[in-house]
């Protein structure tokens, strides 16, 4: 059975509702709302609780808590005078691994951290302590990368959804964050509690109006504007709604409810719930492109040479005409063809025939795509030259064939995959004719949804072996 998200929650990060709700009526109402949220989790029959706290900022990629029973007495950096927060959580460690693997397979840098004493952030401690006090549900905790922006955060959310599906479990997802996050910079008395400014208050109410109507995607799309208007500027964007939309589905069909809205030391704090509506189709809408896989580096930083580029650089010192040998099982790969993107050889010999894996136009050393990629790092469609891609694709095939004792002339069968038959067939067909017109292998051409790298064509051939 595939797992699913049965409930989404938005909850505040400050320790006041946990440590001293009695000191202010607003904090007490937040505590009550937390209690309502706990009961909604119970009713949802969730089997796992997944927390994304904006207070756990990671820097080296995305991190997932992987210690089975993290235990500590936590104290907040600012609100230490309100008391200590002892905790012992139960982490689903398999799920943590799955979260990390899913993130990796969508192009994100990620790791599981499992160290005794690893500092779990105030937001996560508050949320798990109040929503899952007896550890009835195992938990997952994921970090919020300091540099990740919209594309990366949405992809992270989607990868969490992949992991949830794989887990086969019903999952309640929780984002821990303030709305407006400007606090009073001086001490205030509990009875002086109010939202820092009227403008912050008005924006908070607008966001909550949307959430109350279940319009998650709309709030997600407003995130940049929200950051501009009511967030303390600096590096970290307002990203919890991107993550939540990524994991819950980018649409507005939720039964939403706001359970409380109060201030804590001036910041906007709310408890809201979103329950997916079952029998409605999504109406997802975008003002920006949707992203499935993360390709880019976090460009606030200058890139360094990645491992892979590094290896390419080193291997480019090797003589290019050096030919590789067939393995005992008959497989063959060559450094003169594009590096495989999975666990497969370039070719495999069976009897007198040579079967090639699908070959695209990527260049062996640089990974560049002649004619240009079909998409950019954020998933945006680009214009590309189909003729150039087809030439590069057939040239790669030619290289593999020649290095493994065959040639284009020996090709007996071709299967071609195009991502856009209407747009590209004519260009593909004319280049194909230039190369194979005389040779006349059998051919099949198919249109498919996507290829693993941003290319428009891939071809798979079978050829005779000369020697």
């Amino acid at each position, binding site marked *: 059975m595939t797992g699913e998200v049965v409930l989404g929650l938005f909850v505040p990060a400050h320790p006041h509702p946990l440590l001293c709700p009695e000191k202010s009526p607003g904090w007490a109402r937040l505590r009550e709302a937390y209690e309502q949220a706990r009961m909604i989790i119970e009713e949802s029959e969730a089997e796992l609780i997944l927390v994304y706290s904006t207070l*756990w900022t*990671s*820097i*080296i*990629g995305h991190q997932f808590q992987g210690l089975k029973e993290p235990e500590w*007495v*936590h*104290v907040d*950096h*600012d609100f*230490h*005078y309100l*008391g*200590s927060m002892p905790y012992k959580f139960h982490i689903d460690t398999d799920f943590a691994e799955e979260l990390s693997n899913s993130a990796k397979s969508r192009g994100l*840098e990620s790791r599981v*951290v499992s*160290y*005794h*004493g*690893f*500092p779990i952030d105030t937001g996560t401690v508050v949320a798990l302590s109040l929503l899952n006090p007896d550890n009835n549900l195992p938990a997952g905790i994921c970090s919020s990368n300091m*540099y990740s922006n919209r594309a990366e955060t949405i992809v992270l959310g989607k990868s969490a959804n992949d992991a949830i599906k794989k887990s086969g479990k019903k999952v309640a997802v929780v984002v821990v964050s303030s709305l407006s996050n*400007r*606090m*009073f*910079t*001086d*001490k205030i008395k509990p009875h002086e509690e109010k939202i820092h400014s009227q403008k912050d208050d008005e924006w908070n109410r607008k966001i909550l109006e949307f959430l109350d109507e279940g319009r998650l995607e709309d709030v997600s799309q407003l995130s940049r504007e929200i950051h501009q208007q009511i967030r*303390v*500027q*600096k*590096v970290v964007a307002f990203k919890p709604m991107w993550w939540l939309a990524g994991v819950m589905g980018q649409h507005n069909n939720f039964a939403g409810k706001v359970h409380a809205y109060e201030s804590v*030391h001036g910041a906007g704090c709310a408890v809201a719930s979103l329950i997916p509506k079952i029998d409605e189709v999504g109406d997802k809408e975008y003002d920006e492109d949707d992203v499935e896989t993360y390709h880019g*580096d*976090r460009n*606030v*930083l*200058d890139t*360094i040479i*990645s491992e892979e580029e590094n290896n390419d650089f080193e291997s480019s010192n090797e003589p290019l005409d050096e030919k590789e040998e067939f393995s005992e099982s008959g497989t063959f790969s060559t450094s003169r063809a594009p590096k495989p993107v999975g666990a497969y050889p370039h070719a495999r010999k069976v009897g007198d025939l040579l079967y090639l894996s699908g070959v695209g136009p990527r260049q062996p050393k640089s990974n560049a795509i002649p004619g240009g990629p079909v998409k950019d790092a954020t998933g945006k469609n680009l214009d590309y030259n189909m003729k150039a891609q087809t030439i590069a694709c057939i040239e790669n095939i030619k290289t593999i064939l020649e290095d493994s004792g065959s040639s284009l002339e020996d090709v007996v069968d071709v299967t071609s995959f195009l991502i856009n038959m209407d747009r590209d067939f004519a260009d593909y067909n004319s280049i194909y004719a230039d190369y194979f017109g005389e040779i006349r292998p059998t051919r099949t051409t198919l249109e498919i949804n996507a290829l693993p790298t941003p290319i428009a064509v891939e071809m798979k051939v079978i050829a005779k072996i000369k020697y």
Partner: protein
Amino acid sequence: MSGGRIVAGLLAPHPPHLVYAENPPQNEPKAECGWETLRWGYERLRKQLENIDYDVIVILSPHWQTYIGTHFLGLNNFKSLSVDPIFPNLFRYHYDINIDVELAKMIHDEAESDGLSVRMMENPDFRVDYGTITSCHLTNPNWDKPIVSISSNRSVHYYSVEVMQEMMIKLGEATRKAIWKSGKKAVVISSNSLSHRHFVNESEVPEDMSKEHITNHSQYLWDMKMINMMKNGKTKELIEMMPEFTEQTVAETDGGALTWMLSSLNYPTYPATIHEYGTIIGTGNAIAAWDTNDEKRKIEGVSSK
């Protein structure tokens, strides 16, 4: 009592990598080697401090971040395990730190009477931040002097680097006055790196020195600009340059430690000793010391109010 003074000001960066590479018994992970030149720089700093008589270390670290005022550790001892949230694989350090609460309270009071928002931190379960631990360990691995630990107020997030500087200059003055009143000899430490653009992935062997270099050339130029000002006693100019430097190199100086330290020294016009400069995951790190006891380097004591 009065007549206390600052005997040295230090710029002492706190990358956990340096503690990791030293393999002290307090740290759980073990290293093969790494960042030797910076560690030798710290060795030279420790040698220099052997000849300086002091009672207490006063340190400000950007990794104890407070939004509501400046906080001071306010209990005599803190003992626990510190795990670096970014590099837990390198730094899991068992600390046992003595605090000079009396001096902490004096700086607190002085800052308060100068109009700053302040608070003493008196929760025994509080975990001391890894920046404080790392800089103190590298400066004084014997831990035989008590410390005063000051939080980093994030006014830079709420307002700007300029507002941060104003507040840190005030806090530096309050620190100087309180130390004078205490009658103690203090070493003040600014715990931060210089340029802070860093790599976003870690090499498989963290101490693989073939991977270590400055993130880019412009960061290096900025670091050299700052270091040259330190070497030439141009600390006022350095403070004026700070907002731009911080912006261009996303530096940890946004936490205010360097501004505070130079203000507490009353902007030395004599040269700092630069013990070393090196990079850690691409960030620029300088170990620098201003010895106020050297001939012609005496800082004027502040007359009591």
